């Protein structure tokens, strides 16, 4: 992706401030290399294409055969995407994972999403990575560590209320790990697609004061 100079960036920011949502979406499309690939303006090696998604060979892969699966519509991160596009991408990813096993004789795969630059997201277009793996390739070499019981509990207590709110499920005994079975199905009706703004900002709020416990935990655990 081309780097911008400080001046160009400032001018762009100014321009963006005065734009309507439609203009903004259009600008994002023009700036986005993946939108140009989708539009056929930049050539790619296609492995899957349907009305809403495109799967191509990554030219700068983690491993040979790395596939990038993307929605045709421009979204930066997953929380901006309508439910039907999310579900579609993940089921297509299953078949592409299978394709990697068969075509490349891969002995494993990773399905990987990075939401936000902190998570290693480098493209401005949402990408679902499907990465063929082999023993000893040393990719995504994560190690698991034992989490102290009390930390485990406090994570549980901090995440549960917000998660239930997002799921539209009532929490009967707040902050109590032993929950009775929620009766409600997890999916509140998908939002109207038109209500999803093409905002380039992640929908993330900064942590509020009462939630600092998680940060503290994260710092203790290196």
């Amino acid at each position, binding site marked *: 992706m081309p780097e911008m100079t400080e001046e160009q960036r400032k001018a762009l920011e100014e321009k963006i401030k005065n734009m309507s949502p439609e203009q903004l979406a259009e600008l994002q499309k023009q700036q986005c290399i993946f939108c140009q690939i989708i539009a056929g303006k930049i050539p790619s090696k296609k*492995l899957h294409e349907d009305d809403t998604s495109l799967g191509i060979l990554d030219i700068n892969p983690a491993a040979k055969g790395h596939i990038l699966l993307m929605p045709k519509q421009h979204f930066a991160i997953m929380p901006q995407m309508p439910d039907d596009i999310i579900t579609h991408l993940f089921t297509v990813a299953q078949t592409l994972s299978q394709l990697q096993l068969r*075509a490349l004789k891969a002995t*494993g795969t990773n399905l990987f999403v990075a939401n936000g*630059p*902190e998570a*290693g997201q480098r493209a401005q277009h949402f990408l679902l990575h499907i990465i063929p793996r082999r023993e000893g390739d040393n990719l995504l070499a*994560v190690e698991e560590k034992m989490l102290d019981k009390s930390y*485990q509990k406090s994570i549980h207590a901090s995440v549960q209320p917000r*998660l239930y709110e*997002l799921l539209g499920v009532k929490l009967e005994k707040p902050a109590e790990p032993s929950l009775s079975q929620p009766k409600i199905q997890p999916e509140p009706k998908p939002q109207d697609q038109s209500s999803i703004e093409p905002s380039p900002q992640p929908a993330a709020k900064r942590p509020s004061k009462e939630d600092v416990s998680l940060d503290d935990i994260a710092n203790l655990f290196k």
Partner: protein
Amino acid sequence: MKCDYCEIIEQPNHTEILYEDTDLFIIVKDMVITPGQITIVPKAHHPIVEMLPHPIMEKCALLANKVSMALFDIMGGGTNILIQNGLAGGQKVPHVAIEIIPRKENDNLPLQWPPKQLGEADLESTYSLYQEELAREKKQPVDKIAPATSTTASAEEKPSAKKEKVKPDSYLLKSVNRLP
């Protein structure tokens, strides 16, 4: 011998369980890559991701998004969604799971990779391997995973996931089944 996830699933009110419905569990595991990591586990025992029926995958994906949003709200930063598939993919338990991993700037988790610079010849040879396989599948369709139906329909069904006929990718399956 039971797999680790099936064991958790069979204990009612297990402390690790954050959420439960007919098809899946959301848990806070004690072995994690980083604190705040949340795991989505389908209830039915499917060893590898290729075997997971589409409707369950759809549901897992939507919940992964909600968990990701919850972590954004609570912790700030970003998130990774990761499925480790097969031993070579880092899978530890022979039961499909989706990890949602909270990320912070400079947390130094090895969830990145140096992009390889591949030459055109390398890309072309990989691409032709894929195309040969796709052509083979066109002639002789591989056993598809369960048909994609709507999530809402599946939500009402009992998790009788044993019904679907799946012919897994045998090598991968055998290898994950050797997991303790």
